[in-house]
């Protein structure tokens, strides 16, 4: 019995010391980490939906998905697209929708900007694990990626790949990635449409 108490005490003591140190480190780093994350997500949002607000004001307002009461799982051309978050541009020009969906290899997280006229203003992939050199080009900063993403500017919810009779040129060797990106864009626009009619 004594032995068990001793073991418990030693383990507790060490855990308590480690927890204390971690608390202190968290205190020091927390502000910097949140600031960096806000800056990063603002940059990603500004890339798809530029805003024009006086300096010093918040660029976007996050909307609470639960309060909106709109379905967050959207079926676009047979693919399930999940809406992760939506924020409204503070100059009233539109919304930025964060979508999550399956690509060719894994989950892709993508920001889609949608304006009041229900047109896409741009897309930006923030997270993916597509094949390097093929599907990964969709997120690339190189010309091929920039050109691919630029095609989505101005499209509406009926956007399709050329193969399916639409206007988007798929990335070579990456039809599945291209199709899922197209479907997610369509889903984001459908979501904003529902958001507009709910208001």
């Amino acid at each position, binding site marked *: 019995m004594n032995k068990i108490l001793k073991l418990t005490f030693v383990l507790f003591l060490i855990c308590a010391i480690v927890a204390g*140190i971690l608390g202190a480190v968290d205190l020091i780093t927390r502000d910097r*980490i949140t600031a960096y994350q806000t800056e990063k997500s603002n940059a990603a949002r500004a890339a798809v939906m530029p805003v024009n607000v006086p300096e010093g004001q918040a660029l976007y307002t996050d909307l609470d998905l639960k309060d909106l009461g709109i379905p967050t799982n959207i079926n676009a051309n047979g693919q399930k697209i999940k809406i992760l978050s939506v924020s409204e541009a503070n100059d009233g020009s539109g919304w930025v929708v964060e979508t999550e969906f399956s690509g060719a290899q894994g989950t892709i997280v993508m920001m889609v900007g949608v304006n009041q006229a229900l047109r896409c203003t741009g897309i930006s992939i923030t997270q993916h694990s597509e094949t390097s050199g093929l599907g990964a080009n969709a997120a690339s900063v190189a010309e091929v990626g920039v050109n691919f993403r630029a095609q989505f500017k101005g499209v509406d919810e009926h956007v399709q790949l050329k193969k399916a009779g639409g206007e988007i040129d798929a990335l070579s060797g990456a039809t599945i990635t291209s199709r899922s990106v197209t479907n997610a864009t369509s889903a984001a626009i459908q979501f904003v449409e529902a958001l507009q009619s709910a208001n």
Partner: protein
Amino acid sequence: MNFKKQLKEGVITNNPILVQQLGMCATMAITTSLFNGVGMGLSVLIILTCCNVAVSAVRKFIPDEIRLAIFVVIIAGFVTIVDLLLQAYIPALSESLGVFIPLIVVNCIIIGRAEAFCQKNPVGPSFVDGITQGLGYTVVLIVMCLIREFLGSGRFGGGLIDVAKGITLDGTGSGIQLFNSDYGASILTLPVGGFLTLGFIFAAMQAALKKAAKKKAEKANEEEGEEA
């Protein structure tokens, strides 16, 4: 135990990756650019050294039955500290290493050294052991990065070096392009390329170690012969 001997052990004769074959998952996954390799290597070096010192300092108070649990708590603590510091001060590195920083918690090198070395040795040698083993790990990572980056995308020093800006510590450098990346064997930048590269380095290392051992044996034989 002196520093020179431990350094030789850590980097060559008892290298954590090439001889002990520990921590290979992260090795194969992250060695795609020099920036990642140096960052991961130094992170492991720092965590390993801190853990070695901590484990060795408390080794006399730790009951044998719960030593593994305590090692894991100490390691997880240091890894979380490094993870938070990286997120706050070098976010580019934190993003590009991704999940592999938290995964250092279960990296066998650290718990392996705690179990095999630090719980039997005082703080001083344990500290040196952390640095030398960490260096051994870093050296292998850098070699793998150089090979994979060069053959896979024709680059040198991706993330860390930029032609225009010199050395970039924020991971934005594009590296020095030695040949057009279209002619690179892009398979080497994929995980399978990690397996291949590591396999060849293993083979080369084993061959070199064997040759050295043979030479030593021959020398010993010759000396014996002279005496006779």
